């Protein structure tokens, strides 16, 4: 039923019944945003926290949302920031530098309560976790979420050229990791 409601309809409804519109936003984008966040923070509880914070921040700042922008990319932008902020917070709490987080997560992915992948999936996830932060985010958005470079550019505020370079480097590193692992 929700798929029949367009993004423009939701934008219009935001002006008249913000709560109802926001329910539609969560129904429509909640799952996609969760998986985007989950692939960055890996742990379910962290993903849930970041997702809640994403929607709360979106609610607080809905007044500053420009109607000509895409609601979808605006939410992705907030979700990405929340996910990365949570990673940095964890980094401080655990005293682990961000560059070394992949070692922490690499050990935790396969042992995670909520990980149910086969060996190939685990190897891919470990390879992704070896990537630098920016490349990891760009790779996830492009590869798993099928977002265009233009959409990623709007969400992350990075030029399309830089994004293409990041994705290219990410793919090369992942291929190398999987071949040598």
């Amino acid at each position: 039923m929700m798929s029949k409601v367009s993004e423009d309809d939701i934008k219009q409804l935001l002006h008249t019944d913000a709560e109802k519109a926001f329910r539609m936003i969560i129904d429509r984008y909640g799952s996609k945003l969760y998986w985007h966040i989950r692939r960055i923070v890996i742990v379910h509880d962290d993903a849930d926290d970041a997702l809640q914070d994403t929607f709360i921040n979106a609610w607080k700042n809905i007044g500053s949302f420009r109607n000509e922008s895409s609601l979808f990319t605006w939410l992705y932008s907030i979700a990405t920031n929340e996910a990365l902020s949570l990673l940095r917070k964890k980094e401080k709490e655990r005293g682990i530098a961000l560059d070394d987080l992949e070692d922490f997560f690499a050990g935790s992915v396969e042992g995670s309560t909520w990980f149910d992948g086969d060996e190939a999936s685990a190897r891919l996830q470990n390879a992704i976790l070896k990537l630098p932060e920016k490349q990891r985010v760009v790779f996830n958005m492009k590869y798993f979420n099928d977002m265009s470079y233009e959409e990623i550019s709007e969400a992350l505020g990075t030029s399309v050229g830089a994004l293409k370079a990041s994705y290219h480097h990410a793919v090369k590193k992942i291929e190398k990791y999987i071949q040598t692992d």
Partner: protein
Amino acid sequence: MKPEDEIKNSNPFKVPDGYFENLTDRTMSAISKIRKEEETVEKRPARKVSLRPYLALAAAIVGFAVIATVMIRLVTGPVKDNAGNYTTELYSDLALEDIDTYLIESELSQAGVTENPELDETVSSEAIIDYLLQENVDVDDIYALL
């Protein structure tokens, strides 16, 4: 399907049962809670908080003054003036109008002005006419009034 597509389309992560079914309600509940907190903060009058200690201090001072006055009167009793009269008794029966009259009369007395019935009679009609003429009042009007 290529092996890489299989990896892409397979999701290795799991979520608790019913997680997405409850997501909207849980999130809206969290937002509603925040909205209520924000409304409470907005409704709370900032000045009331800042004035509260001053109001308490003022109430304490007034209370102390009342208690102190009652205690002094109970301990000392009525006060005598220079003439040996009890001051509280002297003024207690007087209305405010009487006091005003007394004060005006005493001021006039101090200025040397006294009631003199003969003084009024010494002012003649001619003197009044002269005065009015000096004030440029029309003659016809003066005689009309007299």
